[in-house]
């Protein structure tokens, strides 16, 4: 095999061939440079230039509000249970009007891997990932976001869903039998068919 290779390389050793090859390489190199000199650059001038990311790209997490402007999160612990890096913690409590709310809700973004599993698990559309990836701080403790830092005043990608209009429990949003797809409460003391 090695003898094959020596044979093949032999013509290249010829000085004439060598010069011709060099000029060709030089020429094509300059041609490429010249071509790119005339083309529009592909590099975006971040941060002067900011591209609009797709709506579903996954970065900084927010807690959204329902169409009535009230906190959507019911502190069900599903997002914290599913989070593979355990960076969500919270404490549920009773809120106004019979609702269940988070007394506090904390995401440690220095640990978050932006996998989006929390959003997938959330039964109320409360937790959503946003395209805002520019979420860096000098101090790592500032990467720990509390509920106030997470709450936004809109519904994110889902501005229609309101959990308490569907859940069977009586709250100030809907009473028994007033939720979507519910019959009025039955009278248990009647034996009529």
């Amino acid at each position: 095999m090695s003898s094959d290779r020596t044979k093949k390389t032999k013509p290249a050793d010829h000085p004439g061939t060598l010069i011709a090859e060099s000029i060709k390489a030089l020429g094509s190199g300059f041609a490429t440079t010249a071509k790119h000199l005339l083309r529009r650059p592909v590099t975006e001038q971040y941060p002067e230039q900011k591209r609009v990311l797709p709506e579903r790209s996954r970065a900084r997490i927010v807690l959204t509000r329902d169409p009535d402007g009230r906190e959507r999160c019911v502190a069900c612990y599903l997002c914290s249970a599913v989070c593979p890096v355990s960076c969500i913690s919270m404490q549920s409590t009773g809120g106004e009007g019979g609702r269940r709310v988070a007394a506090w809700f904390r995401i440690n973004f220095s640990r978050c891997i932006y996998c989006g599993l929390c959003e997938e698990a959330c039964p109320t559309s409360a937790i959503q990932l946003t395209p805002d990836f520019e979420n860096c701080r000098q101090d790592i403790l500032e990467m720990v976001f509390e509920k106030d830092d997470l709450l936004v005043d809109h519904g994110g990608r889902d501005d229609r869903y309101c959990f308490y209009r569907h859940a069977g429990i009586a709250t100030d949003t809907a009473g028994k039998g007033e939720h979507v797809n519910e019959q009025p409460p039955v009278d248990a003391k009647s034996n009529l068919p």
Partner: protein
Amino acid sequence: MIKLIIDNLRVEVPPGTRVIDAAEQAGIMIPRFCYHPALGAVGACRVCAVQVLEGSCRGIRMSCMIEAEEGMVISTTDEEAVAFRRQVIEWLMANHPHDCPVCDEGGQCLLQDMTVSGGHGRRRLPVKKRTHIDQHLGPLVVHEMNRCIQCYRCVRFYREYAGYTDLGVMGSAGRVYFGRRSDGVLESPFAGNLIDVCPTGVFTDRPSRFKGRYWDFERTPSVCIHCSLGCRVTVNTRYREVVRVEAAHDPQVNGWFICDRGRYGFPYASSPQRPRSARIDGRKSGVDEALDEAARRLSGIAQRHGSGSVALAASGRVCLETLGALTRFGSEKGWRGPFFRAGPRTAEALQSASKNLEEKISISLKDIEKSDFILLVGCDPVNEAPMLALSVRQARRRGAVVALADARSVQLPLDARRLALRPSQLTAALMRFAGKAVADGGAALSDRARGFLQACRDSRVDPAVDEQIDHLGLAARESRRPVVVCGTSAVAPDTPAAAANVARLLAAEGRKAGFFPVLPGANALALGLAGRTADHGAALREALEKGDVRALVVVETNLSELGFSADDPLLENLEALVVCDCLDSAAGRAARVFIPTQTVFEAGGTFVSAEARVREARPAFRGGTPVAQVSGGGHPPRTFSPDIPGADPLPAWQVLAALAREGTRVSADTLRKALPAPLCGAAPGKRLALPASAPDAFQPPEDPATAADGGLEVVVCEHIFGSEPLSRRAACLQELESAPRLGLHPGDAAALQLSAGQRVAVDCGRGVIEGEIEIVNEMARGVLLVPRLRGIDWHAAADGPLVVAVADIRSVKPNGES
């Protein structure tokens, strides 16, 4: 044994085993909603369907409704059975609301598990969901009827198993409703079990409502220390706080259930009022400094006045390790005590109950369920040892005769034959009963037993009740497994010994007879076995008056149990009052040196229950102030330190070791070994090695006195809520406390010219008990009932039934004037 095949596995089970249980034995968990081992099978939910391939009933069958047969072949994975179960789950979900995210059952919900494992995800039914109005059921249980799947477990527990009737089933067809006739507090003190038995979230825990999810809780096996039965529980903690206590299964003791005192009694552990730092002369200090200071003062006093001038006080709430420390360091240092109970009467009652417990007649709660004749003497099961009432009820359901001899109008969830007797009559009544219950003095009896039987035959109580007692005795003649249950608070000092002797006599006749004591406190049996008879509250009082005792170390004990009031002047005379406790008490605030101790949830501990079973509580968390209190309810603090705030308290046994200048690094094991036999051999999970026979077996009581002429016997009545020192701090249970009233028989009230609602002051010698009169119909005559509740100074009558003269009872105006 019956051999059958389930899913190609050979299974061997005793005859009468249900297929669902046989499969469980083989490790195959067939889905179930309505079946519950304690409540039996009703075949209501249809989710336990299996395919019977071989057997007398082939085809799809409910595995909870059929018994295993020889040669049966069962398939749980058969296609048809799987499809059937899947269908059942889907239709059970047809009306289920869309509220798992806000339901506290979520995560430990059988319905949720089955729905997920059955693969049911979307509702296909086009009709609207049926809904129900919920009821307010009191401070313990939340009702959310929409979630019901009609398994009937709740009513089967509440009405059949527990014997209360205010919760039931109403409506028909798709409207079936489980609740009360109308909103109101559930009457059963076992209502909390609804939360455990309901396979969905209809009944959930109110105190821990919205506090967290099952998977986030640290779950620790533990033991309930709110009475002497030692039920097994599971403690759920999170963020340095006990969130919830649940029943844990113990086939010999509490079965599947616990009472509400045990379930909801825990908030004292995380109360904001709980003392977490030491105090010296009213000034906050570090625990080490306070231990040093207390040890210095104690040794100073011991040097000046002799080591006997330092006394220890303890109660049934200290664990075996602490009791070991009290015994060991007490004897090493020459300190007196531990003093326990209020006086000679109650101390003797406790000790004779403990020391009379011997191998042959000692029984478990489970044995009580199997007995056929139960005599309850001087005890009020629901209020003093709640789960005992459920055990007695199970026996009654199986046809046992239950008789009750007591001064109080004891309420039981079953029908019992009642004998309203004064405490002083109980011993004689027991003996007279035994005299009739034993047919003849048979050759089987030893001389001593025969002597006791003769004393029984000679015993007289009162012509008015003798006949009733005789009837009862005759009714007990045929019983094969008679049981005598005896209290230690509302009885004469010699009653527990007599009760044990009666059980012995019945056992000597060849029956499987048992004696079950009801004791004051989770570790009272150990205290009764380890303590000295002479070391009781009255003796301590005397020693204080004489100046023999100059320093008192109170370990996890409420001084009212020793007959002291919170502001007793005798305590002020002490040179050093050292209080070690996890509770905030008047004595603790008055103490010269106060040292905070850990609760059972932090320190763990070993306790010996009334049936001599050694119960172990493991530490559930490391201690410290709950995160919610540190953060004021908001998010946890963003500052970090290696120490846990509020984690100064030490286990009481370590505190005692430090007070004895032995350093805090003692091992709990060696402390237990310092106790006298049989306590030193206590092995968790086992029963104590009880003596084969007690030294003074068959010793007839010296003088079974019956008379209490011209006076009233004062009986302090324990209540399920509000009496026990730990659980009475739970806000949710405080709502359920009864009003504190002094009970009188209508006849006595008429004789004393007192009427209901009138305020009286009763001079008990050691103090005056003041309160409103309540007329109680079913109680004994010649008795005054004093509730052990807040608002009543019951400690004056703490030493058992003492007699007050009629002249000592006077009526007072509400403002306190005569």
